[in-house]
């Protein structure tokens, strides 16, 4: 068998440049990495980066920029890599994205910039995410990042609730506009989902710490252990503490459970708990760190999203012999990034697709011993456009299990809403905003963005919302103009 095709005359007269393949990402061996918490992917070396950058066509009408939620000037930074101006390249990214080391690692580029890359139409797209990560890491390795010149102080004060990707973006954008910015973070570390949710092996916490430090060097005041809605209300921030505007980026809230029997047995966790213990509290280093985590042998993770993949891969690293994904649809419908699903599979995760849990079985001491499931088949598409899973009658079966981790999403955290009566919520309890561009809530001077508006989404979408909110806040601080949430009333 041969793929060779007869050469055409045109190519004989005008020899084509040899096609450079997309540079593969060096990674840790799957068997080895499934037992440690170090980074899975190792990052491009300088020569990989320059070679990969040379694949960019420098399109006159770059689709990649429109594919990016924060509109990074992608051709510009890639051109600078071609010219080996790595520090200038990272500065070009930072014009619109303060967290390139994070985004280069966790953005779903295959659904954004790389999806619309012209090179990708006949082959594989330029590895934009890997290049972004490369220059960000290069900068970190080559001395202290220089601070941009800041404009004179405006005298305006902005409160940012939540130090996750949305809040950090707002803070970074507004401090550079000369405003005083204070971030109130509920937990004892800044970063939100970047520190409690995404595991070390996918996003080293030192990188998040570096980005937060950078904001503090710019003058952002970070107050940890401040649960807004409890220690201060939004009204107190505005009326008593003198904040001119507030951005709420409090993130995803209460984990969903399924409502099936046995869910409160010992050994059943929300993905949030399992991941928070491990990532934020470093339970994988127990007893060096005080927070414990159980090292289960048979672990089922319910769900097919990125959080489910993070959980199941964590279970493997904690020593599970059998780590399963139990997902009621098929692999095609999985919302997780393909790369994450592939990584999980290479590491030895077992996929029980088209399978729905119906009952968690426990012993007399209250510990999980099994998971009863039902086989599913795909029916007609549902509201999400994905084919609806339909149970197959009589197909019940039981998997022996020590732990069940539920990763099926979260509902809105009520703490801010409970103490801010004039903040309008939608039916699901998320904060209602005018639209995605203005991020204005029903309460004057209060903006919101990220998961507390949209429900569980991605880091980059929260950052995109933060970028939009920062623009809208800037405009509001300049003009004082507000909208009429109730139309003509």
């Amino acid at each position, binding site marked *: 068998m041969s793929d060779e095709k007869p050469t055409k005359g045109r190519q004989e007269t005008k020899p084509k440049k040899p096609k450079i393949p997309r540079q593969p990402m060096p990674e840790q061996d799957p068997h080895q990495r499934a037992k440690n918490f170090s980074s899975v992917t190792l990052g491009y070396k300088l020569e990989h980066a320059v070679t990969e950058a040379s694949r960019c066509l420098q399109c006159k009408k770059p689709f990649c920029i429109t594919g990016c939620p924060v509109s990074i000037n992608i051709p510009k930074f890639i051109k600078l890599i071609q010219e080996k101006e790595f520090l200038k390249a990272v500065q070009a990214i930072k014009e619109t994205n303060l967290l390139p080391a994070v985004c280069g690692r966790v953005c779903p580029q295959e659904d954004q910039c790389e999806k619309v890359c012209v090179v990708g139409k006949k082959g594989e797209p330029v590895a934009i995410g890997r290049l972004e990560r490369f220059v960000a890491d290069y900068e970190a390795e080559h001395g202290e990042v220089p601070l941009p010149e800041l404009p004179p102080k405006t005298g305006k004060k902005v409160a940012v609730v939540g130090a996750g990707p949305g809040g950090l973006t707002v803070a970074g954008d507004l401090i550079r506009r000369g405003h005083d910015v204070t971030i109130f973070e*509920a*937990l*004892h570390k800044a970063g939100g989902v970047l520190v*409690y949710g995404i595991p070390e092996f996918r996003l080293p916490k030192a990188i998040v710490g570096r980005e937060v430090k950078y904001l503090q060097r710019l003058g952002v005041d970070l107050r*940890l*252990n*401040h*649960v807004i809605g*409890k*220690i*201060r209300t939004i009204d107190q921030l505005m009326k008593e503490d003198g904040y001119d505007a507030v951005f709420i980026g409090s993130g*995803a*809230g*209460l*984990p969903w*459970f399924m409502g099936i029997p046995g*869910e*409160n047995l*010992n050994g059943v*966790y*929300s993905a*949030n*708990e399992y991941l*928070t*213990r491990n990532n934020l*509290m*470093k339970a994988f280093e*127990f*007893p*060096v*760190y*005080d*927070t*414990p985590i*159980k090292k289960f042998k048979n672990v089922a993770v319910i769900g097919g999203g990125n959080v489910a993949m993070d959980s199941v891969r964590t279970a493997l690293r904690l020593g599970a012999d059998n780590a399963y994904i139990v997902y009621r649809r098929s692999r095609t419908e999985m919302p997780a990034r393909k790369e994450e699903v592939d990584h999980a599979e290479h590491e030895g995760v077992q996929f029980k697709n088209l399978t729905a849990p119906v009952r968690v079985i426990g012993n007399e*001491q*209250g510990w999980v011993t099994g998971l009863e499931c039902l086989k599913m088949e795909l029916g007609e598409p549902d509201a999400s456009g994905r084919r609806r899973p339909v149970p197959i009658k009589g197909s019940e079966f039981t998997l022996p299990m020590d732990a069940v981790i539920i990763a099926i999403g979260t509902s809105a*955290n*009520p*703490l801010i809403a409970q103490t801010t009566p004039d903040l309008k919520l939608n039916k699901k309890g998320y904060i209602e905003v005018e639209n995605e561009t203005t991020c204005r809530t029903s309460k004057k001077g209060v903006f919101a963005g990220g998961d507390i508006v949209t429900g569980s989404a991605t880091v980059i979408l929260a950052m995109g919302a933060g970028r939009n909110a920062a623009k809208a806040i800037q405009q509001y601080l300049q003009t004082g103009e507000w909208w009429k949430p109730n139309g003509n009333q």
Partner: protein
Amino acid sequence: MFEILEKKVWSDEAPKIKEFMVKAPEIAKAHHAGQFIILIVDEHGERIPLTIADTDVQRGTINILFQEVGKSTMCLGLLNKGGRIHHVSGPLGKPTHIEKFGTVVCVGGGIGIAPVHPIAKAMKDAGNKVISILGSRTRNLLIYEDKMKKVSHEIRITTDDGSYGRHGFVTDELKHMIEVEKIPIDLVVVIGPPIMMKFVCKVTEPYKIKTFVSLNTIMVDGTGMCGACRVTVGGKTKFVCVDGPEFDGHQVDFEEMMMRQRQYLPEEKLAKEICEKQTCRQA
């Protein structure tokens, strides 16, 4: 960092019970009866919930009282006046529902008496007749007797060994009040070991006396994010950190709650052993 302004070791007989006055002006100001904090002793510490026992808004302080039972509380106990707790977050949880109910019986067992204190105070301030029942294993372990006297119209004491007050449990005293003394009770608030709260609820249930319990379950974030603290109340799953910590005691599934409390016993034991061998980082 949160400075410890005062440290009190309860008594020679109860050296494991300690009380700190911690500088935390913002928390002191925002606190309402029934709320708790989460603290982290040091860089490697876990997040542990403790109920606020007293506040002084003028001085900007909160009091926390704890008994050394595991590694985290042992490490906490090693700190002295002038020492610092790495992180304190609060006030968390919903405040106690305070109104004029009539006669309110505040029941505290063991170190559970400390978190009852601000509730009794608020109930008294709201115009209720407050009768407090304080239970302890033995006289030497009884805490907050004087403080509770100040915030109660009447105080009753029980000890398991009979060394002070009634020989018996708080449930015996409560039963006596209801059945023998026929005191009309409008509300019971009880904080203490889960088993004690369970039996207090059993005493009040046949008489349909509303009973609030304050639950101290395992927590991680304490802000509604993780669900580690979940309990079944009235057949529904509730999160102690955001829906509680107080619930209608007659609706709480105590068996399940106690089962969930035991989840980390082996880990707790291991951590404690390391600490006792003085091989832990604080030594």
